[in-house]
């Protein structure tokens, strides 16, 4: 189908599911995860300030937009970030991101 992709999400407890994501409604991955009932604080509402939407990209990172300096600075400060880490609030998906696989890592408090 046009403008629908599938991404696979692994929750903190390892539970994995594939979700359908429309690419033409301009939602960030953080918003998509929240809409899919994942437990994410997103305290700052998408301004790359709180890092509670921290995800690890397990597959498909090359097709994602490059991180801005602000996102990288925030990721560098996290105790549990690695080279696959991104902030879900900064990720907007396109049809090229079909098959993206990520793991939720954001803190719950």
């Amino acid at each position, binding site marked *: 189908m046009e403008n629908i992709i599938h991404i696979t999400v692994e929750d903190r407890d390892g539970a994995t599911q594939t979700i359908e994501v429309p690419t033409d409604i301009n939602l960030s991955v953080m918003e998509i995860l929240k809409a899919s009932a994942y437990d994410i604080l997103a305290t*700052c509402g998408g301004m790359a300030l709180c890092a509670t939407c921290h995800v690890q990209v397990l597959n498909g990172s090359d097709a994602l937009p490059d991180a801005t300096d602000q996102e990288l600075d925030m990721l560098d400060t996290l105790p549990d970030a690695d080279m696959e880490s991104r902030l879900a609030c900064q990720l907007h998906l396109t049809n090229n991101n079909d098959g993206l696989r990520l793991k939720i890592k954001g803190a719950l408090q």
Partner: protein
Amino acid sequence: MIKTDICIIGAGPVGLFAVFEAGLLKMRCHLIDVLPQVGGQLSEIYPHKPIYDIPGYPSIKAQELIDQQMEQIAPFQPTFTLGERVESLQKQDDGSYHVISSDGTVIHCQVVVIAGGLGCFEPRKPDLTNLELYEKSHVHYMVKDPERFRDKRIVIAGGGDSALDWTVFLANVAKEVTLVHRNDSFRGAPDSADKVYRLAQEGKINLLLSHNLVSLGGNGHLEHIHLTNKQKENVIVPTEDFIPLYGLSPKLGPIAEWGLHIDKNAIEVDTFDYATNVERIYAIGDINTYPGKLKLILCGYHEAALMCQSAFKYVYPDQKLSFKYTTVNGVNAF
């Protein structure tokens, strides 16, 4: 002691607008904010960013909005305590409250309004064994006084600006500085990273990349930190102080201890009047939550208006509130 009708915790756009709405009802406000200036995150984090969803302004820069709001509330002569964090509330026998700050400032008020936005930014703590054991004496989440580390052996952990900058600075102060970062490079802050690499090459600091924190060890005093390297081998680094610098994350802080109903770091309120479960305490703006909540400045403004209508009965228990339009009555300054 400062005396006021309404004590507003948080001087962001919503807290400031509450002063206006309160002023129309002849209620005086005192605002207290942990930041040294008014404006909340608009002034602190994105003063130059344009905001597009303020009614009447197709686009307005965040700081301009705050400046305009300050002008709008000037007739109501709000007073401010800035740079102090509210630590506790004390309910008085007559139902009023004392709001007490970190610096001991006491504000006596009839109503408390929490307009705290994201909350207070507090240091993010790493996950390692025995952290609590040494937290009071040998673990430092921020560097307040660099001289404290003169001629000491220290371990700094983190990969952000602050960890890099303090590593560079303390290299000339401490006896031995070790910087631990869990990745094999620094993704941001290239200039600071270059300085750190250079210091490591010159042998002035120890740089341990791809190392993970495991535990702190010692006998009453901190003596060493236990790490693992990329090959999962144990690495023990002797140290007297541990400085984890993992940035700040927004937390509710002391507000969480006031007996208010909290859901995911936000205060539950009744949408009738944005009252919390505790009488005379309201929560408005980004810090509250209710079904359908949108974290928008304009929603906070609406919440401020309704809150004031409800708070009136505590400030003027013997008076009947009559609703008036500013177009009819104007703005009657204090």
